[in-house]
């Protein structure tokens, strides 16, 4: 019996109480037999059920047949027994089939009821609003969540419309949504806002058509969920996202800024590098192409750090040798300049400065004049760490200078000669005076003696006069010789006032003859100057003669002819001499060209003396210039350096 129960339990769950059925279900689920499981899961299916019951009936038939055969065989004869047997089987079978069908129907009903209840319970329990409306909008179903929402008991709500439950604007919108669902027959999601207890709540409504068994739309099923919190969360989230986004944007912008500035910095750096490269390139081009030798000496390294290619060309020595032997350049220097340059080199290392002119002898024997200058290069702390310099070939200039100097010397000599010649002719003329007197005296004596009118002893005074005139002539010749004699140019201590007196002595005749008033304004405390005595004499004499001639040529005898010679201190270190005439002066053009060689305003003049005088004075370290007088005439001034007894033999250096 136990086994039968098990079989029944297993294969006829419909016949068993629910608890048993549950157990059976459990068993089936735990069973590993897959086809059985499948069968079990499809047990409600009509085909499965038919097959099941057909099998059951067949078993029942065979078993009953066996039992009846055994039992009937004992009672009745075989043909009757067989008939009975069939009848019994049919009755039993029919009855069983009916019973089974009944049981099945009952179970199905009970099951539906349970499901409905579960559904209703589910609808009641959920927090979402669930509803079913008919086509007219009346609520057929409304759950308690909905009743709470509208604030009315559940029962009152049924049969009402949206306009009865909700504010008009919301109700209108709901109706519009409903209409859309009813006409389109499709699922619709929409959000509705509802003011509850002063708080706006957001509901997400999902609606779809409610169809009958034939598929006709007979209403609307819907569910509405309060998504306020979710919305708020979403809003917050949105806000957070916005903030985040904003921050991202800000950050991006900041990063872009940084990026931009970095790019600019990079560009600037690239430009700076380019500029530096250009600058270096330019420097290189400059250094390598200029004719001057550019050099850089490192004090710490004690060697030449850089020397431009012009060095090789100029010195005729390789730069490589110089880089290896820093004093190589010195060895090329002319032996006469070497000692000086060695001292200069040492001084250069101490001070950083160099400014020397020297000669070098190239390997081919050619001599070149170099002007070498060096300047200290300081590091950031002001410490001299390098010396940069420029060595220039000044041979051409030097030659030109020599040429010029020679020309100047020649000019000065010529001019001195011309001055001397003029003066000599002047003095020769003056010689005629005593000579004329001598001749006249002696002839007078001779006549007197011849005539015998006079005692020869009375002629003594006349003969003394003759002798005096002879001495006067000798004196003139002595002056002449002094001037014409070739003095070696030598600077010495000169008293300018005494010199002017001497010169005036020479010019006495002319002064006398031109009838000029001489004004001497000589500073008695005038210090001695350092100059070439004879040359300065020549200049002063020339200036006086020039002034006299200027006034002599002046035909206007209206004003007084006046020659002023002044001496005085211009500065503590310079003495000034001024020769001032009252002649016609000079036109501005002539004043400008006054010192040009071969310029003259005099008919017979060579125009050498004024330019020569200037060159003489400049050679003595002074200056010579002309100014127009306020009233009339011209002033010529020159300066000479004051002699200071410092024992400077180098100053009397002889010129070439």
């Amino acid at each position, binding site marked *: 019996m136990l086994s039968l129960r098990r079989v029944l339990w297993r294969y006829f769950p419909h016949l068993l109480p629910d608890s048993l059925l549950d157990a059976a279900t459990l068993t089936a689920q735990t069973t590993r037999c897959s086809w059985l499981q499948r069968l079990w899961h499809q047990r409600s299916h009509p085909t499965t059920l038919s097959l099941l019951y057909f099998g059951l009936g067949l078993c029942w038939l065979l078993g009953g047949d066996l039992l009846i055969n055994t039992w009937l065989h004992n009672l009745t004869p075989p043909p009757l027994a067989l008939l009975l047997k069939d009848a019994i089987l049919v009755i039993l079978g029919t009855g069983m089939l009916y019973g089974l069908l009944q049981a099945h129907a009952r179970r199905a009903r009970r099951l539906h009821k349970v499901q409905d209840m579960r559904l209703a319970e589910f609808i009641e329990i959920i927090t979402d609003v669930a509803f079913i409306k008919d086509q007219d909008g009346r609520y057929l179903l409304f759950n308690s969540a909905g009743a709470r929402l509208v604030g009315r008991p559940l029962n009152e709500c049924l049969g009402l419309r949206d306009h009865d439950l909700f504010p008009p604007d919301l109700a209108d919108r709901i109706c519009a949504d409903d209409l859309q669902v009813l006409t389109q027959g499709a699922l619709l999601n929409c959000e509705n806002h509802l003011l509850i207890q002063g708080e706006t709540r957001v509901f997400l409504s999902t609606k779809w058509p409610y169809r009958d068994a034939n598929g006709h739309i007979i209403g609307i099923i819907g569910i509405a969920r309060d998504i306020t919190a979710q919305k708020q969360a979403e809003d917050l989230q949105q806000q957070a996202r916005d903030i985040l986004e904003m921050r991202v944007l800000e950050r991006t912008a900041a990063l872009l800024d940084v990026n931009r500035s970095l790019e600019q910095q990079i560009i600037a750096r690239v430009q700076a590098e380019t500029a530096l490269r250009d600058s270096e390139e330019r420097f290189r081009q400059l250094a390598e192409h200029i004719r001057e030798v550019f050099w850089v000496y490192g004090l710490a390294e004690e060697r030449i750090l850089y020397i431009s290619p012009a060095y090789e060309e100029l010195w005729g020595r390789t730069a490589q040798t110089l880089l290896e032997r820093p004093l190589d350049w010195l060895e090329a220097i002319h032996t006469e300049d070497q000692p000086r340059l060695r001292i200069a080199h040492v001084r250069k290392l101490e001070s950083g400065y160099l400014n020397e002119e020297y000669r070098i002898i190239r390997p081919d024997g050619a001599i070149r004049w170099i002007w070498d200058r060096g300047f200290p290069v300081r590091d950031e702390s002001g410490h001299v760490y390098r010396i940069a310099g420029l060595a220039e070939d000044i041979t051409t200039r030097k030659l030109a200078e020599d040429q010029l100097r020679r020309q100047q010397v020649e000019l000065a000599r010529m001019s001195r000669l011309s001055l001397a010649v003029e003066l000599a002719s002047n003095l020769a003329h003056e010689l005629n005076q005593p000579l004329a*007197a001598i*001749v006249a005296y002696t002839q*007078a004596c001779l006549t007197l003696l011849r005539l015998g009118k006079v005692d020869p002893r009375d002629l003594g005074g006349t003969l003394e006069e003759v002798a005096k005139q002879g001495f006067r002539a000798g004196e003139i010749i002595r002056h002449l010789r002094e001037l014409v004699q070739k003095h070696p140019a030598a600077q010495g201590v000169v008293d300018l006032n005494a010199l002017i007196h001497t010169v005036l002595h020479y010019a006495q005749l002319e002064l006398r003859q031109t009838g000029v008033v001489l004004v001497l304004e000589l500073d008695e405390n005038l210090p001695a100057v350092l100059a070439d005595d004879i040359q300065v004499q020549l200049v002063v004499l020339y200036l006086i003669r020039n002034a006299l001639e200027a006034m002599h040529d002046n035909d206007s005898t209206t004003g007084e002819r006046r020659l002023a010679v002044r001496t005085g201190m211009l500065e503590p270190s310079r003495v000034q001499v001024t020769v001032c005439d009252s002649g016609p002066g000079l036109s501005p053009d002539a004043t400008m060209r006054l010192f040009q060689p071969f310029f003259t305003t005099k008919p017979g003049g060579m125009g050498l003396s004024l330019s020569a005088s200037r060159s003489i004075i400049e050679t003595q370290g002074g200056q010579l210039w002309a100014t127009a007088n306020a009233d009339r005439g011209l002033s010529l001034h020159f300066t000479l350096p004051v002699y200071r007894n410092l024992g400077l033999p180098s100053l009397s250096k002889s010129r070439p």
Partner: protein
Amino acid sequence: MNKEQSTVFLIDDDQAVRDAVALLLRAEGLQVETFANAPSFLESGAAERHGCLVLDVRMPGMSGLDLQKQLQAQGYRIPIIFITGHGDVPMAIRAMKAGAFDFVEKPFQGQVLLKRIREALVQDAEERCRQAQRADAVARMALLSPREREVLERVAAGQYNKVVAAELGISLSTVEIHRKRVMEKLQAESLSDLIRLLALQNDAS
């Protein structure tokens, strides 16, 4: 003729030259007056006197040439011998053009200078003589009446008396009377005397 002794006026700024030359000239028997400069000569009024001027060209103040110019301007015709130590040609030319008697360079041969001085003195004497004659002629001419002068001019021109009479519209005898008076007034012996006097007068005017 004026019997005044001719004097050599020596102007030189050089004392020695002045003394020596003066001594020489005096030894030769000439009368000499010396001046140290031109203005003192002008002031002395010696320019009016007989003689000649021995003048140094270059002197302070007024030069020899200046003095020459001034004397000429004042109408003095005293001969000037320039002496100079600066014998430059242009100056000599200027002096000679201006009417100098001579130009002697220092130092000079005493005899040369003496010769020139004597010549100058002779010239001066002649000049002064001529001048006196001229003055005389002018004075005599002044005595003539206008008609007499007209007659004289025509006669001196070689016109015959008849022609003169016809030209002046007077009678021949009147012409002859005029002519006689002219001869008397001018103290002329002959026609040639008349002509010489007329020339002298014209020369002087």
